[in-house]
Structure formats: structure tokens, C-alpha cells
């Protein structure tokens, strides 16, 4: 056994390179063509072959004319099944949409669209990304499409390309396994992992040129939110807190007063990835407390704002900070 394992591991890189050459990355909607569709009998199919041989030997021995016919009928049925298994994948079209960005460590769900142009349904189409434990399986009705979210574990911030897919099916009878490899051009953005227990938001922010943003004292009351570590004591709304059994913090709405600058350079002394993690955690905190925030990276600056788009811009910048996965 160790011998074969060693042999396998020796050949694996060559095999992978061969597959990569034979199945290059394709963009847009990709149709499964017959040149790249493979088919072999499964163990079950080989069992069916054994039944055929048993019948044939029996027919020979007992000079059973109809036994011959029956044995050959099994062969003919196997052929009909082979064609169906092959046609089940032939001509299927796949495309990969843009996945929702996730934080490193979470699963990226690549949205795959499977388009079936023919009238017959396609059964049990199994899709597995390379080196992933989870696979997805679906039926596609005739002249219809199916959406499939294929989970791929993200390990590192940056860009995560969809690994090469193995698309396989043993339907309709399980006697044959038909498969192909497909490299789609799906790419996911992976934000840095938020630091699990970050220090409180910095009370004030500073731009790298030293211009201070002063928090003014006269703010409009904007609402309440839950206490978080690092909140100032004088911001606690004692009366409301007493009523709700939660410590609530008065929120103020003031364009300047609450503005927060999150500065990469201020975190000097920490490794780059830790800094990115912390900034991510802070951005999420600021967004959830509705406190406008700006982000300053060595090469980029995002002026303070709030909202979905701003959040996405800031986190993408962190994700694509040099040194991540591409």
C-alpha cells in the first residue's frame, strides 16, 4: 500500500497539469462537449456485466436459445442506459455568477447556473469543486435552468478563484458514471477575517498628515444602541438602561462629532494581517453602530460615510491589500 500511495503522489502533479491543460479556464456560459465527456461503468455496472456473463454461460450450457436472447437483451439495455447516462450531461451549460463576498474562513457560495436546453430533464447532476469535501447535486427539468450555490471554503483574504469542477452523473440507472472537468472563471472576494475580540473603536481618528478631527460636544440625539466595550461612561443612557435590563448607549448624530478615521498606519507594530483583521472588525462595528467612518490605507483613502456601498468599498480594499491571495 505505501508503494502505491507513493506512486500516486508522484503522478498526481503530472495528472493535475494534464487536466489543467486539457480543461483550461473558460469564461461565460460553457457547454459540455462530447470531446471532454468521459464514461466508465461503475461497480454496479460491472455487476450487471457479471449477470450478463452468467446468463450467457447458462444459455451455452443448457442450450437455451431464449437464454441467449435474454443475455443479449441485457447487453442491449446496458447500451441504452449508457447512451442515456452520456446524454444526461451532454450539452449541459454552466456559468458562474459573482458570489457574495465573505469573510475569510467562511464558505463562499459560488452561484452556478445550470441551463438545460433540451426537452428531457437531466437527473442527479453532481458538482464538486476540487479538494472540497462538500458537493452539490441537482435535477434540472427540461428546458429550464437551475441555480446552485456551490460551497467552497475560503482560507485566505483576497480573491478566491472557483476551483476546477468535476461534473458527474450516474443517472438514470447507476450502471455508468459519466463525468467531465470544467474550469469556470468565477472569482470570489474574500474579506479579511474580523478580529474576534477587537479593542474598542478609536475615540477619534487622525489622518496621516496629522489633521485632527475633533469630536464636538453638542450633538443631536439620534437613538440608542447596545453597550460595547470602550464606550464612554457619560454616553450611557441610564434611565433607558434600567428599563430594558441592557446597558444602552446614547447615539449622537453629528457629521463631524462621530466621524471616525480608521488608519492603517496608526496600528504600527502589528503584523499586516492582524492590522487588516482589526480594521475589518472596526469597520463592522462602526457600521453596526451607524457611526460614519473613513478608512485610510497607505495607498488609498475612503472619506467617512456609512451604508452598504461604503462598507463594501472599504472591505474590498482591505481584502485586496497587497499580500493576499489572488
Amino acid at each position, binding site marked *: 500500500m505505501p508503494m502505491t500511495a507513493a506512486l500516486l503522489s508522484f503522478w498526481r502533479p503530472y495528472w493535475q497539469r494534464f487536466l489543467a491543460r486539457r480543461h483550461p479556464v473558460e469564461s461565460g456560459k460553457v457547454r459540455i462537449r462530447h470531446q471532454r465527456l468521459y464514461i466508465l461503468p461503475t461497480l454496479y455496472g460491472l455487476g450487471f456485466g457479471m449477470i450478463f456473463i452468467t446468463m450467457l454461460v447458462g444459455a451455452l450450457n443448457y442450450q437455451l436459445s431464449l437464454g441467449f436472447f435474454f443475455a443479449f437483451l441485457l447487453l442491449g439495455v446496458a447500451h441504452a442506459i449508457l447512451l442515456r447516462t452520456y446524454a444526461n450531461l451532454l450539452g449541459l451549460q454552466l456559468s458562474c455568477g459573482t458570489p457574495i463576498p465573505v469573510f475569510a474562513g467562511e464558505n463562499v457560495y459560488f452561484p452556478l447556473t445550470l441551463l438545460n436546453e433540451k426537452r428531457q430533464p437531466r437527473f442527479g447532476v453532481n458538482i464538486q469543486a476540487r479538494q472540497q469535501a462538500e458537493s452539490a447535486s441537482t435535477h434540472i427539468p427540461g428546458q429550464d*435552468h437551475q*441555480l*446552485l450555490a456551490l460551497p467552497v471554503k475560503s482560507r485566505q483574504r483576497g480573491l478566491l478563484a472557483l476551483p476546477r469542477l468535476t461534473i458527474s452523473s450516474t443517472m438514470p440507472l447507476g450502471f455508468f458514471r459519466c463525468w467531465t472537468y470544467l474550469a469556470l472563471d468565477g472569482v470570489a472576494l474574500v474579506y479579511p477575517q474580523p478580529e474576534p475580540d477587537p479593542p474598542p473603536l478609536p475615540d477619534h481618528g487622525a489622518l496621516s498628515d496629522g489633521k485632527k478631527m475633533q469630536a464636538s460636544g453638542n450633538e443631536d440625539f439620534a437613538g*440608542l444602541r447596545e453597550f460595547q466595550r470602550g464606550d464612554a461612561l457619560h454616553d450611557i443612557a441610564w434611565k433607558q438602561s434600567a428599563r430594558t435590563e441592557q446597558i444602552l448607549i446614547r447615539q449622537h448624530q453629528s457629521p463631524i462629532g462621530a466621524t471616525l478615521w480608521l488608519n492603517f498606519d496608526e496600528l504600527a507594530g502589528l503584523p499586516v494581517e492582524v492590522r487588516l483583521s482589526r480594521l475589518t472588525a472596526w469597520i463592522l462595528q462602526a457600521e453596526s453602530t451607524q457611526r460614519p467612518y473613513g478608512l485610510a490605507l497607505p495607498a488609498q483613502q475612503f472619506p467617512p460615510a456609512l451604508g452598504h456601498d461604503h462598507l463594501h468599498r472599504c472591505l474590498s480594499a482591505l481584502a485586496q491589500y497587497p499580500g493576499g491571495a489572488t
Partner: protein
Amino acid sequence: MTPQSREMLQRLHQAEQQLNQIILGKAATMRLALIGILARGHLLLEDVPGVGKTTMAHALATVLGLRFARVQFTSDLLPADLLGVSVYERSMEAFRFHPGPIFTQVLLADEINRATPKTQSALLEAMAEQQVTIDGETNALPTPFFVIATQNPQAQIGTFALPESQLDRFLLRLELGYPDAKAERALLQGISRQDVLSGLSPMLSAEQLQEAQQDIAQIKLAEPLLDYIQALISATREDQRFSCGLSTRAALGLVQACKASAWLEARSMVIPEDVQRIFPALAGHRLILRQSGRSDPHIAEQLMYSVAIP
């Protein structure tokens, strides 16, 4: 298209122009708002305060010649405050119904997520049934009757998010967003919105609006478009990212809105553009992400672009 309806269309375009003079740089949103009204749907405006939601609702009501009322929803607003009460009147020796602010043609329900679920559902029931029942007495709401609800999208303490079933009653969800720099500058230079509002004149009457709505029903919807709409609906149902797909009510709304959109462009048939214009606004608030519990119009749009046009 008959000359009659052509004239009506002209008037509506004039109304749209007036709206665009008040709410600057939001022509697409204004068009969607008109589509929503023409398709007899209620609107949900989601935005931060101070971007002109009230102005927009008021202007919309005025140019369409509809009565308008605004109710600020707060946590202490009771259903009776909205619907009205029956008061015993000594002079008549009987209970008399004092209608609440809901008895109007366009109701602006401001910050609907601040009211308690009880008040919310009182409003939503009235929306669904076009009538109000108090103390066993049923009072029909005026026709047409539209609700434009606003809510602040950011989750805050002390608000009650609308449940999914209630969200489904709103045909479209719109966002105004901050005006772009040019529009904001024009706003800052110009006269106040209030003055413009008071200068608005109604462009058509409630009856004419109803005629327009009848006209819209005649718009052709070809088979391939039905296929497209069904493909979109089933795409939302099959996508595992969402906790549930679009309802049949939503699909019907999409058909109505598409027809209204085609009519507004003086076309006699619906084309895929109409579907693509409306779908994100229609599906955005209905598709709740399983992972985060949020809804996101961008994902609806993304989904739309993953479905082929038959």
C-alpha cells in the same frame, strides 16, 4: 393607442416632469414610483431621513390630483390614531365614526418600522382589504388608495422590522439616496422645496388615473415574456441563498408593473426591458438572505442577470 389615452399619457409625462423638478436627479426612481401607482401597488421607501421622502410622496399625490395625508409612526401610535374612532355624540344620541388620517387617497406612513406590530398590521390589513372595520362597522377607503411607507433601513433599537408576509404587500421598494453633487448644489441654490410644492398643480384627476389603469390592462404580454417572468420567479425559489422565493402575488405584481412601464413608454407590448427595470425594486425587499437575514436589492439584480431571456 387611442387619442384619449395618448392625452392621458401626455399629462402623466408632464406630471413626471414636475416631479423631477422637485426631486432632482432621481428620474429612474420617479418613473418606478409612477409605475407602482399605475399598477395599483403600494410603495416602500427605504432611506435615511432627510433625503426628501416626504416631499416626494406629497408631490406625487399633488400632481396626480389625489388627497394626501402624512402620519408619523411612533411606538406610541395606536391603531385608532390611524384608522379613526367611534365617539358617542350626545346631540345625535348615537356613536359617530370619526375617520382617522387613513381616509385619504395617498397615505404617507413615515417610519413605519417605529410603530408596534399591532399598528403595523392594522395598516396592512386596511391596505389589503381597501376598508376599515371598527366596532363592527365597515367603512370603505377612498379609491384610489395608496400607501407610501418609509422606513429607515438601519436596524436600530426600538424599531419593529416588518415581517416577510407584510413586506410582500408592498409592490416596489424604492431608494432615493443622497442627491448627486450637481443636484444637491441646485437644491442649495434654489428655492425651498415647500415653495415648489405649493406651486404644483394637479395634472390629472383620480378618475383619469383609473382610466389610465384600465388602459394599462390592454397592454400585450407575449408568451416569451411570460416564460421570462416564470424563469425569474423560479430562479428566486431555487436559489439556496434565500430563505424563500417570490410569491405568486409578487409575480402578478410584476406583470402589472411591467404593463404600466410599457404604457408609460407609449408601447403596446411589454418587452424584457420592462421586466429588468422593475425586477430589482420588486424582488429586493422580498428576498431575505438566509445567512444574514438581510435583504439586498443588489443581490436581486445579480440574480436577474444570471437568468437568460428566453
